[in-house]
C-alpha cells in the first residue's frame, strides 16, 4: 500500500506524524511512574512522606470532634427520611438516636485509635471504618454529600502503607511501596479535580457549538453566581458574588483559570515541581468558590496541604525555570520555541 502513495500524500503523512509526535511527546514524557520511579529512589522523599502521614490521623481527631457540632442538624433531620446506606446496615435494628450516638462515638474513638496507632495497619483500618460509618450516616437522608468522600478513600488507601515506620523496617522495597501508596493518594485527589475539569471542557464545547452561553462567554461566571445566589438561603451571603455579577469581565479569567487548574490536575501528579503551586491554586479555587457561589468544599483543603504543599516528591533544588517548563500547555509551548528558532536559523 505504502509503495503506491503519491509525493503529496507523503508530505501529508510527514506533517501528520509531526503533529502526532508533538502531541505524544508531552504525554509519553509524563507517562505514569517514569518520573516518579526516579524520584522515589531518594531517601529524603521517604522520610518526608513518613513525617506527613501521621498528620492525617492527628487531624482526623479534630474532624471527628467537630462533627459533634453537626449533631443537632442530623437529629432534626429525623427518622422519617432516614434511609441507611449499606455501611450502616445494622441501623435497621436499633433506634434512630442510638444509631447517631454509636456512629459519632465510634468515629471519635476510631480517630483517637488512629492518632496513637497509625503505625499499625489495624489502627489505620479502624480509622477507615470510623470515617466510613460517619460518611454513611451523613448520606442517609436522601441527599448525597460528596464533601467527605475524599476522607474515606484516603483512609482506605493509607491502610495499604507498608510497615516502614521503625528504623529496622526501612528496606528499599518498603520505602518504595510506602511512597507508592502516598503517591496513589496524591494521584487520587488530583484525579477528582481532573474529572471535574474534564466535564467542564466537554460542556463548554457542547454549549459553544450550540450557540449557548458557555465557559468562554464573558458573562459565564456571573451567570453561575447569579443562578446560585437566587437559590441560596437568604442567610448565606456571597462576599465577591455581587462584584462579579455587576462586572462580569472580572470573572472571565478566573473561570478559565479554574478550568485549566482542574483539568490538568492529574497531569500534575507526574510533575512534582508543580505540586505546591497547584495545591495553592486549588486552595484558592475552593476559597473563591465559597466567596462567590457559596460552594463549600473545605474538606478537601487539608489534603491539598498535607499531600502537596511540601510534597515529598518535589526536588528542593528544582529551579523556577524547571517549574515553568513543567506547566501544562505553557511549558510545552516554551519547550518548543527555542527548537523552532534553531531550526529556522539552520
Amino acid at each position: 500500500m505504502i509503495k503506491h502513495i503519491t509525493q503529496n500524500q507523503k508530505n501529508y503523512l510527514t506533517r501528520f506524524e509531526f503533529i502526532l509526535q508533538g502531541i505524544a511527546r508531552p504525554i509519553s514524557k509524563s507517562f505514569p511512574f517514569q518520573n516518579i520511579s526516579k524520584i522515589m529512589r531518594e531517601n529524603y522523599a521517604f522520610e518526608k512522606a513518613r513525617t506527613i502521614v501521621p498528620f492525617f490521623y492527628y487531624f482526623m481527631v479534630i474532624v471527628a470532634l467537630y462533627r459533634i457540632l453537626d449533631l443537632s442538624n442530623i437529629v432534626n433531620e429525623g427518622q422519617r427520611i432516614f434511609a441507611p446506606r449499606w455501611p450502616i446496615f445494622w441501623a435497621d435494628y436499633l433506634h434512630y438516636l442510638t444509631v447517631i450516638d454509636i456512629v459519632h462515638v465510634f468515629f471519635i474513638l476510631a480517630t483517637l485509635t488512629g492518632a496513637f496507632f497509625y503505625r499499625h495497619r489495624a489502627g489505620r483500618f479502624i480509622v477507615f471504618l470510623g470515617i466510613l460509618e460517619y460518611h454513611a450516616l451523613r448520606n442517609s437522608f436522601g441527599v448525597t454529600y460528596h464533601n467527605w468522600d475524599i476522607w474515606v478513600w484516603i483512609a482506605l488507601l493509607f491502610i495499604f502503607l507498608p510497615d516502614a515506620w521503625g528504623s529496622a523496617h526501612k528496606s528499599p522495597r518498603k520505602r518504595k511501596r510506602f511512597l507508592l501508596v502516598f503517591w496513589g493518594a496524591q494521584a487520587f485527589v488530583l484525579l477528582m479535580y481532573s474529572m471535574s475539569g474534564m466535564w467542564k471542557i466537554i460542556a463548554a464545547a457542547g454549549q459553544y457549538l450550540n450557540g449557548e452561553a458557555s465557559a468562554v462567554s464573558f458573562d459565564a461566571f456571573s451567570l453561575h453566581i447569579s443562578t446560585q445566589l437566587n437559590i441560596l438561603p437568604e442567610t448565606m451571603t456571597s462576599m465577591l458574588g455581587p462584584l462579579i455579577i455587576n462586572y462580569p469581565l472580572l470573572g472571565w479569567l478566573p473561570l478559565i483559570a479554574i478550568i485549566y487548574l482542574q483539568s490538568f490536575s492529574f497531569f500534575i501528579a507526574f510533575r512534582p515541581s508543580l505540586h505546591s503551586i497547584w495545591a495553592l491554586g486549588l486552595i484558592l479555587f475552593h476559597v473563591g468558590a465559597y466567596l462567590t457561589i457559596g460552594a463549600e468544599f473545605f474538606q478537601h483543603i487539608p489534603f491539598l496541604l498535607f499531600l502537596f504543599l511540601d510534597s515529598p516528591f518535589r526536588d528542593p533544588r528544582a529551579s523556577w525555570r524547571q517549574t515553568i517548563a513543567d506547566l501544562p500547555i505553557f511549558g510545552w509551548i516554551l519547550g518548543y520555541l527555542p527548537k523552532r528558532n534553531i531550526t529556522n536559523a539552520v
Partner: protein
Amino acid sequence: MSLSHSLPKKLIVLFLVFYFVVGVYAHFYIINQEEVYLLYSWDLYTKVPPRIQTEFTILIHEFEGKRLENPIIFERARGVLYSSLTEYRHSTYNKTNIQNIVRLLAPSIMHDKTKEIERLRMELEKTFLSHPVVYEVVEITFNPIERWKNGRFININSLGIFTSQVF
C-alpha cells in the same frame, strides 16, 4: 525488584482507572437516580446556566390567615414562614429535598395525577409548610442576573393554588 513491575503499582493504577471509569459511567447513566455510593463523577457546576431559565417553585400568598400584599417566593420567605432561626435552618438543611419535591409536584399537577399530587403535597406540607399557608405552585421564567439584581421574572405561570393542611 523493579518498581515498574510491582504489584502495588498495578493495583494503584487499577484503582485510579476503576474510579474514573465508574465516575464516567455514573455521569451518563445514573442521572436523577440513585448514585453509586462513594463513587462520583465530580460533575459539579459543569454547564454554564442559560441566560433565560425556567424552573418550578412555590409562592407564599397567605400565612396563618394573613394575606401577604406581594406573594413571596419560598427561598425568600424566611421572615414569614419561620419564627425561629433553628426552624429555618432545619428547613434550609432540607433545601435540596424541597426542590426535588416541587420538581415532581409541578409536572404531576400539569398532568392531573391526583394521587401523586396528594402524596407530594403531604410530603411538602408536612416538612416545610407546617403552619397554615396558602401557596401557589408556579413555573417561572427569568434571566438569573436580572432576577438577582431586581427580583424580576420574565413570566410566572400558575399551576395551582393550595392551602396547607396542619399535620
